[in-house]
């Protein structure tokens, strides 16, 4: 299972704990949207390369 964690804002402690559990024993990747100029082509590529995407607040 390949899972992608996307963050729309800096993750809270609760989000970090949930992500740790969700990523356990999985091939995990992440993408930060809360930067000045997100690379949407790179995000799209990651979404299609992973089985599942979770996009946090």
């Amino acid at each position, binding site marked *: 299972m390949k899972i992608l964690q996307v963050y729309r804002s800096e993750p809270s402690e609760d989000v970090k704990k949930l992500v740790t559990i969700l990523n356990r024993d999985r091939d995990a990747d992440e993408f930060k949207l809360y930067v000045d100029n997100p690379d949407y082509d790179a*995000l799209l590529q990651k979404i299609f390369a992973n089985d599942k995407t979770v996009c946090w607040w």
Partner: protein
Amino acid sequence: MAADPNKLGIFVTSAQNMRHILGLAEAAKRAGKTVKVFFTFKSIHLTKSPEFYALSQLCDAEDIAICADSYICEGYDNVNDIPRGMTDKQMRTQAFHGAILAECGKYIVM
């Protein structure tokens, strides 16, 4: 019907990610993928932005819709004030979200 592996569903639930939604939709077009987008609850305010019109022009009519109940709950007129780029047939129910899950091989929340 099996989900289309080249189709990205975008479920929009908040009113502040329009640049991300449009950015992803433009990236999808460049990559030869399609998107299917549903705007619900407070996110319907995004339909008043110029970026929303640009998004509406990137999507087929059956692949972009607004939750009509949310639109009305937020004070807009769903008959006389349809967002630019849309028609009354794109004012839909939560069933459109179900259609996204059925049709799209990939899915993201905004």
